């Protein structure tokens, strides 16, 4: 939407100056029927309009996940290790005190072909401290993914998709080098980015065919915003724990869909 435009709840777009001019014209009309105009406006105001709603929920992990491992090769690396006072660990299971599970990719199934990726702002994936940040992220098909190198050392950015149509690529990125840009035409869950110079560096990018997705935060919470009314299947996918689904119906109000994963 451009500046200077008014977005009507009834999905009518009228430029502000055009509206004022129209009102004067109405006022000057000889056979103006004010009552009819006001009736029309009143009817527009009370007209039932289909409202988008949010799908919200909390993801919980039941059971004790395997212990994360110390990334000792990182600590032992002359360039990378100096940036850490202690040895960093892997982050496969980001779990809160009450089992709140982060880094779960939540999306709507069966809404293919709705991608707005071409016009969506780019998503940034950074290489910082010889780790990818964030490690779990999601974009739309056609949306630009910008990969930065904030480190003082060289990395190679190696995208390893498995879905046909998404091209594999491997590019070197010097310290302070130009950002690298990626787009993927096909939906794919957990498309892996890796650095082979530092083989502990990974990021998993989920590519969606619609704008209706999000990633659970450290409290396990997620919100898929502005979902049009309808029946949907919500999918929650964790890189290690697989995927779960839940059917929901979106009407006027927000819908809740909680998920519980279990590690055995």
């Amino acid at each position, binding site marked *: 939407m451009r500046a200077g435009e008014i977005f009507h709840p009834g999905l009518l777009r009228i430029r502000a100056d055009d509206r004022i001019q129209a009102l004067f014209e109405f006022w000057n009309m000889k056979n103006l029927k004010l009552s009819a105009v006001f009736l029309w406006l009143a009817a527009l105001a009370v007209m039932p309009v289909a409202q988008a709603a949010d799908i919200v929920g909390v993801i919980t992990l039941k059971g004790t*996940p*395997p*212990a*994360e*491992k*110390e*990334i*000792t*090769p990182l600590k032992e*690396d*002359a*360039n990378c290790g100096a940036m850490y006072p202690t040895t960093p660990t*892997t982050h*496969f299971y980001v779990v809160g005190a009450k089992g709140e599970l982060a880094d779960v990719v939540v999306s709507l199934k069966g809404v293919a072909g709705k991608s707005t990726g071409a016009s969506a702002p780019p998503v940034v994936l950074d290489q910082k401290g010889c780790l990818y940040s964030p490690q779990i992220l999601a974009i739309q098909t056609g949306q630009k993914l910008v990969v930065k190198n904030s480190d003082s*050392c*060289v990395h*190679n950015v*190696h995208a*390893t998709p498995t879905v046909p149509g998404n091209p*594999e*690529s*491997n*590019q*070197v990125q010097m310290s302070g080098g130009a950002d690298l840009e990626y787009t993927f035409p096909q939906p794919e869950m957990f498309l*892996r980015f*890796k*650095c*082979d*110079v*530092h*083989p*502990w560096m*990974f990021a998993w990018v989920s590519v969606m065919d619609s704008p209706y997705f999000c990633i659970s935060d450290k409290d396990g919470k997620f919100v898929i915003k502005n979902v049009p009314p309808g029946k949907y299947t919500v999918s929650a996918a964790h890189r*290690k*724990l*697989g995927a779960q689904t839940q059917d929901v119906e979106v009407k006027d109000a927000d819908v809740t869909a909680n998920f519980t994963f279990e*590690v*055995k």
Partner: protein
Amino acid sequence: MNAETPIKTNPWLCGFAVLTAFATFLLLGLGGLVTSHEAGMSVPDWPTSYGYNMFALPIKFWKGGAFFEHTHRLLASAVGLMTTLLAAWLWRKDSRPWMRWLGVAAFLGVVAQGVLGGLRVTLHMDALGIFHGTIAQLFFALTCALALFTSRFWAGLVANPPRLRVPSSLRTLVLATTLVILGQLILGATMRHQHAGLAIPDFPLAYGSWWPETGADAVAGYNAQRVEINGENPITAFQIELQMAHRGLALVIFILVAACAGLAWRRLGGKDSLTKLALGWLALILAQVALGASTIWFNKAADVATAHVLVGALALTAGALWCIMAFRRSEPSRATQALGAFGAQPALAANK
């Protein structure tokens, strides 16, 4: 087979052939480290390195995975040069036609292997890595064979073959065992180039049983419990079955090589060079089993996994050389006649 006049050997040529074989062995180890460190794609371009001439890459870039990949490329170039020189030397100085062509085969082999390694990088094809790894082992066996054929030992074998001939049953068994080892190496290369880490994390059991469950739920459970520093791909049922096949074949190879050694001892006697080689072969297999187990127990530590690759190459080469020598002093047969070309040139013409 009749004894022939001794071949006049050239110790410099033999020494250079041995040096080439040794350099190839080091290259094999460095290649093993590249895969063990998951560093095969750390230098995305080829034949340049990070856009530089390969031989002029500033040393500041020789870090992390790039160190292994780049030094592998440099050593491969050296082995390529050495093989080219060896082939040229053989072509000019060795009058045995089959030997000259074997040198040409080695030259073509090293070129093909280099191109294959480069294409594996530029085409992003893991499958090419399997071929690259397997051909590397075969090429090492070839360089060792070249060293053998240029040696005084081989000349002695041609001139004065031991009276005791190798029974066809024994050489067939050794040949079959060597081929089974080659199959095992292909399996191993396939496992390594899945880039999935350890498909089974325990040994001698597999996920706590003698044969692991490979249903979808079981595999999902295995993946949920795997925490790999190298963030490997999730494992699949196929990869678990592949490792089980590798374990099973290892047992078969151990039995076969033990049978070869036992048969050689019984038929050729304990002092025969082939019996000694067969016993050494058995020792290699025992070491290989221990290294295979250690690869799992040490969570696929790069040095242990690479040692496993190297001993595998030695086991293949030991079998191949045993076969060559056994056919050279085998009982008369059609196979012998077919392979009689080994060293069957008139003595004085053998080396100029």
